[in-house]
């Protein structure tokens, strides 16, 4: 689906991360699903940017975007009531299992996991939200996470508060109570997590540079179970143990 939607609310969550809210009735998105967001109507940047669903509630869609480069920088200049063109929702996403889980977010990886947390909360599935960022200012959505999660832990690499990374934090946790882990963050974090070989299934929300985002171009390969899968169409959520990270 192609849609041109008006920004009904724009929020700055931190100095480089903002949210765009749209009114979008009639979709039934799954956590992990994303939209291909058109940067602008010129041909430069040429490709759309994949952005996860961070919240969908009462027909309101929230996308949270961290400024990384050219495309996200241009998007950050959009104002309320301006139109944005979106394609999607794309991706298979996941259906949350009714099992006590840990949601493990690194940096902007919090966006899709926040939507997963919302699903868990609505379905009364107990979960712990473990969220790490470089500095304390970069921790966003704290109130909402605290409200929904049975337990929430925030860690930062620098500054006051609990120090460390989500990977070191999960390593020190008693996991006997949990059945499943969902993780989203930079590839380095996913690799470190994979090396922990946790004694429970870990589902990773993968991010990469996409072309079409919908299975047409074969531009988004991930080595999974010995064959290439499409991040966009077969994922972006995969069982971490079976991924072979190549780049």
């Amino acid at each position, binding site marked *: 689906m192609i849609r041109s939607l008006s920004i009904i609310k724009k929020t700055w969550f931190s100095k480089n991360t903002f949210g765009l809210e749209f009114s979008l009735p009639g979709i039934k998105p799954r956590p992990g699903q994303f939209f291909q967001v058109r940067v602008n109507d010129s*041909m430069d940047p*040429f490709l*759309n940017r994949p952005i996860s669903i961070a919240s969908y509630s009462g027909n309101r869609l929230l996308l949270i975007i961290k400024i990384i480069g050219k495309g996200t920088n241009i998007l950050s200049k959009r104002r309320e009531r301006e139109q944005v063109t979106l394609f999607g929702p794309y991706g298979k996403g996941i259906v949350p299992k009714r099992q006590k889980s840990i949601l493990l977010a690194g940096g902007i990886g919090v966006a899709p996991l926040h939507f997963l947390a919302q699903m868990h909360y609505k379905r009364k599935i107990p979960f712990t939200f473990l969220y790490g960022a470089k500095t304390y200012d970069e921790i966003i959505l704290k109130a909402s996470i605290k409200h929904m999660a049975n337990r929430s832990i925030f860690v930062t690499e620098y500054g006051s508060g609990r120090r460390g990374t989500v990977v070191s934090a999960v390593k020190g946790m008693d996991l006997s109570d949990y059945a499943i882990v969902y993780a989203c963050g930079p590839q380095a974090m996913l690799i470190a997590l994979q090396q922990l070989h946790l004694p429970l299934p870990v589902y990773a929300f993968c991010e990469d540079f996409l*072309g*079409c985002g919908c299975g*047409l171009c*074969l531009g988004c*390969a991930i080595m999974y179970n010995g064959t*290439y899968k499409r991040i966009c169409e077969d994922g972006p959520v995969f069982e971490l143990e079976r991924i072979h990270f190549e780049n």
Partner: protein
Amino acid sequence: MKIKLFGTHLKNRVLLASGVFGFGLKFKRVTNSVGAIFTKGITAQPRKGNPPPRIYETSSGMINWVGLENPGVEYFCTNIIPQLKKLKTRIFVNIAGFTMDEYEHSVERIGDTVDGFELNISCPNVKEGGIAFGQNAKMASMVVARARKKTRLPLIVKLTPNFCDPLVIAKACVEAGADGISLINTVYATAYDIKKRKPLITGGLSGPAIKPFALYCVNRVRNVGVPIIGMGGIVSGQDAYEFLLAGASAVAVGSVVLRDPYAPLRIIKELKKFIYQETKHAR
């Protein structure tokens, strides 16, 4: 906008370029609206494709290094062709290969279950074969002649603009029995990773960035004597019309569908207006 090309009727002059729409089995409303689709390149054996990163965005375009990921001709014949038959458009199978035997084998194996072939002797993303045939008139002519013996269906040859004169290659292909020429395939390109101080990706450039070069190439081969399918950077009806002015009988749209899978519908509509204007002036 109906046209007759290679003895078959096409709904219109806007076709889908190879590799950007898979086998046309998604977004069927789009596939069924275009004049024809060129499938993803098919090779004799299945190929898993290249490791990531496979694409990289550049100014008004992109580099791809997909590496002909495809299920191979056997799987294609058994599992894909039956589905393609249900589409309401013409199907041209893009055939890629590493040896001349492979091209010949794939064409023979597919037989007359489709509407025609596009011999891809221009893929920059695999090590051997392919593009080497497309850069040498003698070899190009041999590939075409051998495929020609195996099929009576329309045989189009897709040319590379890289390090060769497309006109020389096009002439050789036509002499060897090609019914049409399509061009351009992607342009050699590299993007650097400055942190690692080495190339991040080397592959084929496509999109609006290559349009002027593509128009030059189409215009250069315009008198070769067979219909030309022009492509390279088309994103609008005006772009498509420019290719027709440069000598193409039809156009194919590629990368733009990554940005908008419905773009072909818009381009068909826009091109209609240009053609209508032209016929009005002619009267």
